[in-house]
């Protein structure tokens, strides 16, 4: 046993420890990104479960009287925004890997603008609905979807904005090549971009599923 009572050591790090912690940090971003997708999956899966459970049960024949549908123009517009955001994320990341930081920044800011537009459309759709929230099972689940989608759009846009803002801060602090350098900040930053891109791709798939459920079927 090591009796070290009241003999706390002095913090110091060796280069190997720095590298170890940096790898762990980058691994955490990778793992965290995937685990976040897992959490998000269970959350939206519970909405999908509610949709299909109520649809198949059709209690009081009130699942969807008169086949009422949420405004499809809003649905497609929001979906298009999500799709473009995802494509911009994938495009931006591929350009970043090739060293084209400016392209990634432009893609990022464009995605932020589109994200805010999608969020606005999602919120505005609530005041343009042709049904009351509790008028049917479909109406209820649609409201649930709308709230979840608004939160998702807000969170995604926040993630993109903070990443792009961080890129500008890195350039200010460490110079023009800061994002492509081998520093811990740059490596951490690029791991974050990869996780964000991965999540946006997944959000696009989820958006496709719910577009089919609420606007097409």
């Amino acid at each position, binding site marked *: 046993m090591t009796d*070290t009572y009241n003999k706390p050591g002095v913090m110091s790090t060796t280069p190997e420890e720095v590298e170890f912690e940096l790898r*762990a940090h980058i691994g955490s971003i990778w793992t965290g990104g995937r685990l976040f997708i897992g959490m998000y999956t269970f*959350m939206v899966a519970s909405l999908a479960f*509610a949709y299909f459970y*109520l649809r198949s049960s059709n209690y009081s024949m009130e699942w969807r009287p008169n086949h009422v549908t949420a405004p499809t123009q809003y649905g497609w517009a929001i979906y298009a925004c999500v799709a473009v955001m995802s494509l911009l994320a994938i495009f931006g990341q591929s350009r970043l890997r090739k060293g084209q930081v400016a392209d990634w920044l432009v893609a990022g800011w464009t995605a932020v603008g589109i994200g805010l537009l999608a969020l606005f459309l999602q919120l505005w759709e609530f005041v343009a609905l042709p049904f009351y929230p509790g008028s049917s*099972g479909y109406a209820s689940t649609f409201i*649930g979807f709308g709230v979840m989608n608004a939160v998702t759009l807000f969170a995604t846009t926040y993630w993109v904005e903070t990443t792009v803002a961080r890129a500008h*801060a890195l350039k200010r602090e460490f110079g023009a090549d800061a994002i492509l350098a081998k520093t811990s900040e740059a490596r951490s930053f690029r791991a974050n971009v990869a996780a964000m891109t991965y999540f946006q791709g997944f959000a696009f798939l989820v958006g496709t599923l719910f577009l089919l459920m609420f606007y097409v079927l």
Partner: protein
Amino acid sequence: MTISAERPTDVVATPPSTSGAVRRGGWFSQHLGTALIAAILGYLFGHWLGNHIAGNYTPVVNSGVNDLANFFGLLFGVVGWLLGIGALNYPLAKIAGRSGTEKTPDVEGFSKYFRYSTDHKTVGLQYVIGVCLFLFTGGLLAMAIRTELLNPTTHIFAPSTYIEIVSEHGTIMMMMATSIVVGPLGNYLIPLMIGSRRMAFPRIEAFSFWIFTAGYMVIFSALPYGGFPTGWTGYAPLQNQAGPGMISYLFGFAVIGLGMMAAGFNIAVTIINYRAPGMTWGRVPIFVWSILATAALLTLATPVLFSAGLFGILDRVDQTAFYVAEHGGSSYLWENLFWFFGHPEVYIMALPAFGIVAEILPVFCRKPLFAQKVGAAGMIGVALLSFFVWQHHIFQSGINPDMRPLFMLTTELISIPTGFIFLVGMGTLYKAKIRYELPMLFSLALFFNFLIGGLTGVFLSDVPVNVTVHGGFFVLSHFHYTIMGGLLFAFMAGLYYWLPKMTGLMLNKKIGLWQFWLMFVFFNLTFFPMFIIGLLGQPRRVYTYAKNLQGLNDFSSISAFILGISFLIFAWNLAYSWFIKPEKAPANPWDSLGLEWQTATPVPVHNFDRIPVIMTDPYHYGEPGATALADLSGVSSSTGNPA
């Protein structure tokens, strides 16, 4: 896991932040006081806003109840709480591109426990106090329940008040129990046990604690709103018909759910990525395995509860009909979503308890942990299977009868990996020379209690028995034996075992022995009669009962009061050992081989002077000449991968 021998000269000289709390000195910085003020202001603003928006709506005018105002009050109250404590400083600063790895100095002294600290050790101790507050509040409500049940005809509470107390007790206890081990012990010990200097996401860790405390206040706010009559399960359609206190229940669950997800997420990522070099999965301590399995459940099952709570809130504030069958919804939807979370929640509570006792047993048996890998496999098996058993909770609630055998089978299957864990304990105890210290006594009590709770659980999973005893005191006794008899005894074992490490002070053994014997004896005297009461037909959640059951109920109530006294003795022990007559703890009072005992006490901010290199698992007790657990001189002096 290997360490690169290449010298990373292009890497900056500081690692990603290993720092603790952000320095915010003085009364005008952010702390618990500012959080309370901001929460009150947020509540008042939200309530005003809700009244402004919906005050003139016909349903609100007709009923006199404005759920939107109540919900907005609580929502903005929670946001104010987070703003006031400083949890939103960093997310807001990030918008301007601030780094997540900027090094910040630590706050020293006692005041750090009232602030938004990102040091995992501070958060762990904050959780100790937080969960004890939950526990004592819920315990007081339990005393009120047992007082009412002293007499079937003379009543202290009205029926509606009684069910409100029962509901609040159940909800507070279940929410507390999800975090009682993961919060205090998980956050404090996991980095120490895996040889890490930090958590993966310290801010998320701090967030998990402060949102947990917010959730406590939200759930408790149900009482001034008139409570909720649904029990802790919140079943619809009663949920839709209940008074405004129901909002506190639904929103409180969602808020605590956020904390559970954050805690599970952070801990899982930390265990996966921050294990010290050489700590292969086979060398991971069994307590860490249990927390990893729990973290997986917290991360994946809780989002379903969060969604279910969101749907319930929408039903009340936006008049949707998720749980209203007349408008295309279904009360069974709530039941399915709730129990899809609710049953894994049982294992969220049970697995850390198993982890604690499995960690403690070898120390006091001076024997290696028997079949460590089988125990870890059992924990993962329990976690996986827990997602496939939820419908046994609704055998009596109108599910398709053809589905019952399937869920009966899956429920019985889960007893197999649970049995693995039990056998690991029994195998370790076999032919051991046991040291009967307090942590060991509490651990042994767990096996006794959980055996009764587990065996009755096997009976309850059988449909015929379930049909007979459903909704009665038999079920109540069963889950108290598993949760209180299992988790709470393990928690006590963990506190007596690890608090000397966490605080540097020993807890008084004599007082602890009084607590243990009173708690163990009177726990059993309280809850065992309830099996009989249940079989004789007394239903749960009802404030009266048949006259012939009064003797058993009185016996149970008086035992419960003494059980309550045992917790007061524990509180006295904390006060006595920390403030009245503090006794410094030796560096390793139990002669443990665990890595957490190999670092300095009190644990320095950075945990280890050097990141250790792990050589073997920490259970080689009684093996002369066994390999040392770790090379504490660190990775820089190590040559290659010791694994």
